[in-house]
């Protein structure tokens, strides 16, 4: 315990040192802090230099350094609410930005209207990853409720990825049962009975499925599934697209309080607008997130098979309602996991 405290103190010291360094950079250049979720790391590593070059060209050579912070989406939102000076937030589900509206008015209430496409520059979908050759013949959501199938899903209580998976299954079941909620509930219950491990986040589920050889199918985001193909040997796995999926839009917003204080509004807005520009959309597509720009989407059509999708907004009545009925304590998710 003592050594853990010591190592924590060391980490804190390191962080302090790190912030100190950031400030020294801040005096030399113009900076921007983008607080983002976990798996957008690789994407913004490419976006940031491209944006810097773009800004420099249009503003007489002014240099911009974009600093990144990554972590679990909800935790990151909490840090910003608690005072982390983010100029912009780029999350993977809108509740994590909505919380910044309700907690201290850090973000404008109409943040979704400030940028095109409901302020979400890209989307991704819940898809299946199965073992090579699809030995269990998994084609659609209904296969996941078969008693001989083990499904790997991150914990819907702690992971946005898991929440989308649950909602995708719910939406599918609701459509099959023509709106009968009792039948949909029985369906998701049967599906989650086949889940042997609930990992904390998307990456944990990936590890369980690919490294521990547990489960017949991993349900995760399309970009993660494609990344697995690239990183851990695509020869062992293949992606299966179900007949219907949920569209997970990744929303972005300017943190009003911070940009007013730091005088970085123009820069922050330009940065987020860059995500919607053809150059930004191209980088997004290369990272296997589905771009909003139809021309870019068409260019990369081979990567993104057309699929019937629904959204939380158009079929499930919005996030506030979904949180309330499904994920709140005693909600439908809690009911189905109870024995």
């Amino acid at each position, binding site marked *: 315990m*003592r050594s853990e405290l010591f*190592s924590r103190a060391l980490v804190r010291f390191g962080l302090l040192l790190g912030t100190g360094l950031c400030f020294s950079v801040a005096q030399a250049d113009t900076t921007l802090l983008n607080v983002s979720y976990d798996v957008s790391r690789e994407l913004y590593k490419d976006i940031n230099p491209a944006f810097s070059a773009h800004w420099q060209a249009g503003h007489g050579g002014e240099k911009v350094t974009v600093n990144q912070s990554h972590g679990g989406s909800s935790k990151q939102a909490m840090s910003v609410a608690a005072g982390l000076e983010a100029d912009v937030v780029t999350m993977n589900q809108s509740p994590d930005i909505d919380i910044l509206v309700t907690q201290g008015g850090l973000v404008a209430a109409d943040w979704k209207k400030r940028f095109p496409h409901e302020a979400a520059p890209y989307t991704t979908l819940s898809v299946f990853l199965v073992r090579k050759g699809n030995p269990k013949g998994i084609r659609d959501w209904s296969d996941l409720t078969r008693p001989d199938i083990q499904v790997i899903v991150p*914990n819907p209580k702690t992971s946005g990825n898991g929440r989308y998976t649950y909602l995708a299954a719910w939406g599918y079941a609701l459509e099959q049962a023509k709106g009968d909620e009792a039948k949909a509930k029985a369906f998701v219950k049967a599906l989650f009975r086949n889940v042997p*491990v*609930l990992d*904390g986040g998307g990456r944990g589920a990936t590890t369980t499925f690919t490294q*521990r050889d*547990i489960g017949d199918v991993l349900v995760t985001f399309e970009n993660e599934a494609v990344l697995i193909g690239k990183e851990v040997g695509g020869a062992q796995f293949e992606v299966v697209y179900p007949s219907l999926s949920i569209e997970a839009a990744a929303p972005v917003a300017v943190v009003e309080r911070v940009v007013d204080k730091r005088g970085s509004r123009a820069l922050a807005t330009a940065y987020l607008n860059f995500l919607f520009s053809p150059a930004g959309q191209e980088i997004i597509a290369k990272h296997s997130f589905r771009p909003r720009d139809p021309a870019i989407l068409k260019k990369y059509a081979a990567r993104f098979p057309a699929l019937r999708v629904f959204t939380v907004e158009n079929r499930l009545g919005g996030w506030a309602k979904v949180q309330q009925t499904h994920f709140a*304590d005693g909600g439908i998710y809690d009911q189905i996991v109870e024995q």
Partner: protein
Amino acid sequence: MATSRHSNVLPGFNLALGYTLVYLSLIVLIPLAAVFIKSTSLSAAEFWNVVTAPRVVASYKISFGLSLLAAAINVVFGLMLAWALVRYSFPGKKLVDALVDLPFALPTAVTGIALTAIYAGNGWLGKPLEAIGLKVAYSPPGILVALIFIGLPFVVRTVQPILEDLDTELEEAAASLGARRWQTFRRVVLPILLPALLTGFALAFARAVGEYGSVIFIAGNMPFVSEITPLMIITKLEQYDYVGATAIAAVMLVLSFFLLLVINLLQAWTARRTGRNR
């Protein structure tokens, strides 16, 4: 105790006491008080509903039950390890001695991932174990393994110095007076070690109850089966339910405090009985 103020050789008692109280308040009492204050924004009924939800109650059983079991196992095997390190000399003894501290230093996530990799169904130990029908990773035994791992150094390091002070002459005397080996151990050695063992037990238990990082990787986190209480707190935080999280935290604090108090009283009692605190 009453005479200690007058008989103190070193000055500065008041200063030391003041410093202790300020330090303890800043580091321990104020943050813990904040937990209780935050949880009082719930009404009594709401608080009760949160902390007695079936899933949360199941997690108390898992967290406290497995932590007690892990600490008990560590007392037995930690004592054996300490005994071997103090009484015998063998090649590589220094290395083994150093290895004992490793669970202290290792980041808990590393512990969790390493243990999971080894005990999963396709791991070195997981494969033969599952062949004989024992599933370790992603089930409660996996949690137990992780808790034993992180708690081991506490028992070894508290018992070791006492064992080093323990003269073999005592055992020889017992033997010469006709005690058999088991009697010597039970009547002579064990009573002397008992307070240290209890301290080690309390420390290992306290560490295990609060452990999150390593357990979360190996537990499987299935509701009612392998969810630990710290995970229930994190779950609440993820839903921005700060008050619910602090309510469960408050219950954990009270339960842990109560258990540690009992262990400490037990330790004081055994120490008095064996006359070691004089």
